[in-house]
């Protein structure tokens, strides 16, 4: 299912022009990271992808659905959305019920919803907490619960708004594994992040935004290597790329393996030329 953003502009009721003529196509199974400084319009953009916001101008389609013509609740069957702040999302009295909420709303029978919830909780390593009250968990754990709540819905598209924020190294690694699983299942993954190394590790395509516009959109290695462009969005290239640039390597390595390969071949004739 393709996501199509066609020449979308969006102005908030207060008058803030948060998106200006944004066009973007995301194919089924792509993994896309959206970066850019606070206020760039990242959240506004992804809220268009499940119909929470409707474009002031332009059009957004999710597969054959125009977001204007379907309620957000119906869109939820296609696009899962994990919000930034977990405390705005949790409604149930136990972690298990909370994770089953989405599958139930999508019309699954109680036992199936429960099975979905259990599987999703295992994915975020919180299966032992299914009877716990969500507010008895720590904030990073609650965030994982909201992640599980969306995983349990098995949507073809999953959007995460800053999922690694507030997580420790173990949490970040866990979220990384979840993203890899989703990618292996050919699901579309869209993430907003400030964690540029995380972005380099897991995402093949990067969209950089500033002032409501798309500044750059392309393969991670290319977008993340452009220090000049990233500087305008107040982001530094990933550590490995900066190291490679400092060493005068031509490559933009996104993983340690790529870095080693580039380093060991540094004296081979430059094939780029």
């Amino acid at each position, binding site marked *: 299912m393709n996501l199509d953003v066609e020449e979308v502009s969006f102005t908030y009721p*207060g008058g803030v022009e948060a998106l200006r003529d944004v066009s973007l196509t995301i194919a089924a199974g792509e993994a896309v990271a959206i970066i850019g400084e606070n206020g760039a319009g990242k959240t506004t953009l992804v*809220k268009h992808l*499940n119909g*929470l916001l409707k474009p002031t101008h332009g059009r957004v389609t999710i597969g054959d659905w125009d977001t204007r013509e379907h*309620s*957000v*609740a119906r869109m*939820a*069957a296609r*696009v*899962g*959305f994990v*919000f930034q*702040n977990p*405390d*705005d*999302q*949790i*409604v*149930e*009295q136990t972690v298990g019920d909370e994770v089953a*909420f*989405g599958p139930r*709303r*999508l019309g699954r029978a109680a036992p199936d919803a429960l099975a979905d919830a259990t599987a999703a909780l295992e994915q975020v390593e919180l299966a032992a907490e299914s009877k716990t009250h969500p*507010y008895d968990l720590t904030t990073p754990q609650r965030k994982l619960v909201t992640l599980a*709540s*969306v995983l349990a*819905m098995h949507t073809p598209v999953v959007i995460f708004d800053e999922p690694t924020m507030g997580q420790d190294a173990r949490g970040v690694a866990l979220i990384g594994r979840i993203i890899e699983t989703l990618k292996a299942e050919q699901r579309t993954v869209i993430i907003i992040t400030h964690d540029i190394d995380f972005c380099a590790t897991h995402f093949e395509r990067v969209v950089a935004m500033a002032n409501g516009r798309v500044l750059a959109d392309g393969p991670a290695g290319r977008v993340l290597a452009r220090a000049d462009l990233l500087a305008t969005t107040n982001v530094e290239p990933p550590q490995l790329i900066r190291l490679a640039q400092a060493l005068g390597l031509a490559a933009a390595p996104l993983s340690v393996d790529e870095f080693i390969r580039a380093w060991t071949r540094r004296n081979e004739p430059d094939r780029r030329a």
Partner: protein
Amino acid sequence: MSSTPFSLYIPRDSGMHRLHPLTKLALVGFALILGLFLPGDWLTYLAFVLVILPLAAWAGILPRFLPAVLKTALPIVVSLFLVQGLFWPGGTPIFHLGPLSLKQEGVTFAIRSAGRFIMVISSFLLLTFTTRPDGLMLALSRHGVPNSIAYVMLATLQIVPRFQAKANTILDAQRSRGLETEGNLFIRLRALFPLIQPLLLGSIVDIEERAIALEVRAFGRAGPKTSLLMLHDTPAQRVVRWLLLLASLAIIGWRVYLGLAA
């Protein structure tokens, strides 16, 4: 000046907006007392038309003020008329609707209560629409109101938009997980239940965080504080405020006298 977050303030360049916050408070307080303490059923409405509406027009906010008053008051007013009018115990029937009948006493009571309700809502909205919350707080503490009390007043004025913003975010999160909120009244009412827990728990967390934020910013420190905001006051406004205060007291006194005499 742009609007401040979580306030209902509508920035305009009007005479009403430029008044000292205490003058606005006095004006609106006077209108409120007029509405609540005047005897009879219709004088309240008269106070609304003759005091509140002209002030809102002067402020240049009528197109947003009227719908806001209507939207807030309508559900209560309609239910007042239905419940009091139809279910007044005993009473004189003036109109029959199948097995039910509209009672004279119930309708009279509803007219009186609705007027008061509209008056309270509209004066509250008029004040918040035309007054920057920080200005009001500063004015109050400059005039000897303890900071903590000024803060409580301010927080009360801000609670409505805060709740509104939070409720919208929560509802968005629920809709994104398949909760149907669009459609008939029943669907929309049912969608409100999942809001209750995050709203209440969220507010408790908010309160704690606000308390900590206030503490680390030396809120509890005694003595006067410097403010970046400049308030403009005039001798004429001071006189008007005293007159309004005296007039308000006179109305209350007159009402108490009537009550005692009766």
